[in-house]
Every structure is written in C-alpha cells, then in structure tokens.
C-alpha cells in the first residue's frame, strides 16, 4: 500500500504558513512518515517539470498557501488542481486573499510605479520590472504582475480551508492527521473552532461598553490589566472571528485582527463589524461622529485586513 502523495505550494506568500507546518514539531515526523511529499518548494528540490509528469488526480492532497496575484502563481495552482484529488487552502492569503489582498485598492501600474520609482529611498530613473527584458544573452522573462489579488477559491475549486495568519500549528496538525486517517469531513470544510475568539480569550469583560475613544496600538498602550481590549477602546475583532487560535494575540496585549476569517453565517464581515463599532461608541452629534471617524483612519484596512479580495466589494473602484 503506497503512501499518499502530498504536494505543498506557496503562491503570493510570506513563507509563514510553511514555517507553521514545520512548527507542528514532533507531529510532523509522524505525518512525514505516513505520506510521500512530492513537491515543496521551500524545503525540497522538486521542479515544475516533476509536477507535469504526474497523471491527473495522482496527487492525493495538495496544500496551497498564498494568494494568486501573478501569472506564474495562477498557472501552477491550476496545474496542481488538475494533478490533485484534494486541494486545501492554507492560511489567510489562500483562504480569502490575506494581507496582499489589500493591494486590490491599487492597480499594478500604481504599485510598481510607487515601489520602483517613488519611495523615499529609491533612486530616480529606476525602472519597474517588465515581463520581457532584452539582454545580450537573450530575452529574460518574468511572470505578469496582475492588477487583482485573487484568493485561491476564486481561481480553482478548493475542498478544505485552514485559515489564520499564520494558521495555528494545532489546526494544521489536526487537518493532516484527519487526512492520513481518511477522516476528513465532507468538503467544503473549514478547519476552525466552533466559537469565537472571545470564548478562548482569558481577558475580563464587564459587559459595560462605553468607548470614549477608539485607540490604536500605533498611538496608545493597552492598560496594564486583564481588561477586555474592546472595552478598552481597541478595535479587537475577536467577537467577529472564529476560535481555534487560542486567542494568542489578546493574550499578548494585541487586539485580534481577525486573521482566522469570518464565520460562515456572515456574508461580509467588514460590513457586519461596522454595526459592532457603531453600537459601542456613544456618539450622538455630528461633531462626535466626525471624531469617531477620525479615530479610525484606515477603515478598509481595519475591516478587511485579511479578506478584501473575498469581500462583497472586493477592491477599490478605479476612477474612469
């Protein structure tokens, strides 16, 4: 009985999800013994040509982390989809677009122009990279940098979703153990807890929300207490985020940013969270409302930090 074949790929990714696979520690040894890893760019030396040699659906499980925002990533995830029986999206980028997804507020040209010409420390006359460049040794090619960042399910069919930025190693280990045992639930399925982050958070909630001012870590220190961060006036997305991470961030004095995604009964979490923000802040006059709005300078970044591509509005509309 041959071992199941597993491929792991990173698209528009920071590498954090791959490090979390390694952080499953000793569980990884059991999993590595039970499967045959046939592709893993960060850790092993297989080439794209090796992937092409597989028959369709020959790979039993492919785990893809990272969003899709260039032509190479799109090509490879589609290739992997053809060659795989099951695909799992690992991490916020694959699940919903992730932090790279915030780039849907800009076009590719705007981004490349800023990055390669306009930052403070960039030399003048720098050129953004091109898909084709003539050199004396021939033409060098690069993948095309897309205008839009896509989540993985926006490009290929995905059976399983393991969210988080990065996903907790415990959830990665659980998903892999279920796979090896042949006990994965019927797809599509999200590997998350069934409560909210608040239920895992040890902070004290008095239930009295009277936020006088919305605070940000950039400008305010959390109190030296065990008080709920939302009650302190920080925009903690704990109430709107599925459990499974153990509330690591609030335990470390950092308001939850919602990286574990949304609960499945909500269509657009950002829009829903607006109600939460509005209900906690006792502004009545136009002046007080303006003060409230000024205290949240980047509303889109706060509401859609990890899931702008998969939100209803998806990105910023270009002026024509």
């Amino acid at each position: 009985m041959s071992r199941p074949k597993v491929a792991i790929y990173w698209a528009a990714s920071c590498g954090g999800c791959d490090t979390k696979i390694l952080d499953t520690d000793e569980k990884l040894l059991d999993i590595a013994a039970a499967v045959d890893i046939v592709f893993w760019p960060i850790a092993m030396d297989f080439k794209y040509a090796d992937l092409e040699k597989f028959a369709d659906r020959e790979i039993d499980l492919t785990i893809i982390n990272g969003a899709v925002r260039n032509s190479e990533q799109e090509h490879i995830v589609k290739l992997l989809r053809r060659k795989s029986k099951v695909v799992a999206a690992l991490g916020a980028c694959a699940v919903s677009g992730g932090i790279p997804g915030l780039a849907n507020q800009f076009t590719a040209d705007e981004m490349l122009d800023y990055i390669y010409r306009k930052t403070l420390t960039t030399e003048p006359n720098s050129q953004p990279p091109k898909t084709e460049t003539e050199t004396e040794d021939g033409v060098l090619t690069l993948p095309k940098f897309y205008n839009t960042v896509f989540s993985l399910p926006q490009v290929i069919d995905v059976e399983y979703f393991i969210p988080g930025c990065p996903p907790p190693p415990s959830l990665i280990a659980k998903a892999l153990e279920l796979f090896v045992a042949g006990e994965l639930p019927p797809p599509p399925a999200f590997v998350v807890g069934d409560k909210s982050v608040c239920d895992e958070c040890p902070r004290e909630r008095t239930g009295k929300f009277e936020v006088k001012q919305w605070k940000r870590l950039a400008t305010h220190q959390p109190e030296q207490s065990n008080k709920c961060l939302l009650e302190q006036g920080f925009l903690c997305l704990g109430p709107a985020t599925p459990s499974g991470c153990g509330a690591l961030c609030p335990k470390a004095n950092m308001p939850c940013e919602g990286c574990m995604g949304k609960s499945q009964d909500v269509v657009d979490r950002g829009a829903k969270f607006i109600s939460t923000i509005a209900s906690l802040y006792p502004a009545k006059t136009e002046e007080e409302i303006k003060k409230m709005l000024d205290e949240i300078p980047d509303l889109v970044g706060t509401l859609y930090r990890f899931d702008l591509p998969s939100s209803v509005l998806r990105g910023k509309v270009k002026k024509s």
Partner: protein
Amino acid sequence: MWRRMSLLRKMMEQLGIEPERLRVVWVSASEGEKFANEVRDFVEKLKSLGPLKMYEPSR
C-alpha cells in the same frame, strides 16, 4: 444609526464608490408626498451619477 451609516459611507468612499449613492431618510407611512419626493430626487441624483461601477478583477 447615523454612526453606522457614517462608517459605511466612509468605507464606500475609501473603496471608490460615491458616498452620494447612500442616502438615509426618515419617512413614515403617512407621509406619501414626502416619500415620493425623496425617491424622485434620489433617482435623479443617481441618474446624474451614472451606473454604479463595481470593482472589476483584472489581470
């Protein structure tokens, strides 16, 4: 209610949708004329803005 609408308007603006496309009006069932006037005015406003442009994914 105004807090929620203001936040929604700010979000729309940040995402490139004209904030004038969101209007909140208090009208009761017995204020038929006011309702008709508001709707008429809003439709004219929307026509002058043109069709809603949503984000279009592109490569």
